[in-house]
């Protein structure tokens, strides 16, 4: 696999433990007290979206459901709120993945934005429908910043898969 389908650079296969590690780190980032500030992205949604795009055979809706359950309990939200949004996100991301990876990374970020916004809006709609109070427009700033973070995130999460630049000429692959 390549960073994007148009790139000629080949990547190493992903290591499963790195996927687990990145998702746990995303959970921890979500639990940080910084999460109360407006505009702080939902890290779990972002990393989940990333792996659903790149490795949709490994990370799918089952993962999304479990992570959503963890986030629901951690947030003290109604159970099922994050589950529903994350499952939708994982489905949309994996069905987009074959097209998305043909674009340069900046354009990928632009296409990821509606997915992340949808995740946030679904949650807001679910809670407002059952009588929650409106969290303010800062709540919808998070996905915008998250989609900007898509560019550095792609670089960081693909780091373990890059191959050394100086290669053995006898073994081109």
């Amino acid at each position: 696999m390549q960073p994007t389908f148009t790139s000629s650079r080949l990547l190493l296969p992903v290591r499963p433990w790195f996927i687990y590690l990145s998702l746990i780190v995303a959970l921890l980032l979500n639990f940080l007290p910084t999460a109360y500030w407006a505009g702080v992205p939902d890290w779990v949604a972002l990393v989940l979206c990333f792996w659903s795009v790149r490795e949709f055979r490994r990370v799918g809706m089952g993962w999304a459901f479990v992570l959503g359950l963890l986030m629901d309990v951690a947030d003290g939200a109604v159970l099922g709120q994050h589950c529903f949004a994350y499952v939708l996100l994982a489905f949309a991301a994996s069905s987009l993945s074959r097209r998305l990876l043909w674009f340069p990374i900046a354009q990928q970020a632009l296409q990821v934005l509606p997915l992340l916004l949808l995740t946030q809006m679904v949650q807001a709609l679910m809670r407002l429908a059952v009588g929650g109070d409106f969290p303010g427009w800062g709540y919808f700033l998070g996905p915008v910043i998250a989609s900007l973070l898509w560019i550095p995130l792609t670089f960081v999460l693909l780091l373990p898969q890059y191959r050394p630049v100086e290669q053995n000429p006898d073994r081109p692959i």
Partner: protein
Amino acid sequence: MASLDHAPPPFFKRGPAPLALLAFYVLISLAVFVVDLRVRSLDLLRQTVALVVDPLQRAAQTPGSLVDHTRSYLEGMQLLQRENNELRHAKLITAPNLLRLEQLEAENERLRKLLLVKEREDAKGQVAQILYTSRDPFSRKVIVDKGQQSGIVAGQPAIDEAGVVGQVTRVFPFSAEITLITDKDQAVPVQIVRSGQRSVVFGLGTGQMELRYMPANADVEVGDMLVTSGLDSIYLQGYPVAKVVGIEREGAYSFARILAAPIAGVENFGEVMILDPRQPLPPRQPEAQGRGAGGDKPGLRPKKKQAAKGK
């Protein structure tokens, strides 16, 4: 070859179609959502998951609390001494009232006995530390460090040094969730100190509260103090809840819009006192139960009857 790509896509064992999976998970999450909201029978699931999540959450809170600790450590002696002096001063100012409190309570008890009124319940409880605010942006809740292990049960009221803070709504093994009185539609039965009128104050979700269903000509003034009325078998009588900060009376509506601000440091971090559950109310009169077919206003019927008898 390992560097080429991951394993080839499975041709024969493909699993369920994505749409079928999506429908499955969506149905499950919606079912869980509705059950958790309406039936509230998923607390066991929540507690089990909380056992996994809670250590992670506490770990994530440590950097922030470390910074807080260091800051308070570095603030130094001078501030502490000043604070100590101020507290001593405040204690002296309240001393005349406090010193006589015991005598007043005794006198009150004696008078109540003379009047054959039931004695006041004692307020007991345990102090709990607020760990963190719940991350849910749609509600106002805090997590404290006492849970099932300390005997906390759902429904207990929480107060701080100034007044009512909220009510325990969920209990986990080592922590509990307190819904603040400013949470949207969180209700506290109150009494206006000046006029003795009873009502219910609701949270608005904006940090303020509203006294609903008061007629436009009700005797309420800005600055009126609202204290718990004790009619709900949850809050003891007489704890300060809120102060009226604004009244809008419009002829178009039959109710006045009365805004109140909470008295306790509801949105501050710190310690709260979780009061023990109140003694259960005396059982309803069997006669009243038989007559109160509607069931939602059991207290009204006997009174009306007495009034009729008086005439």
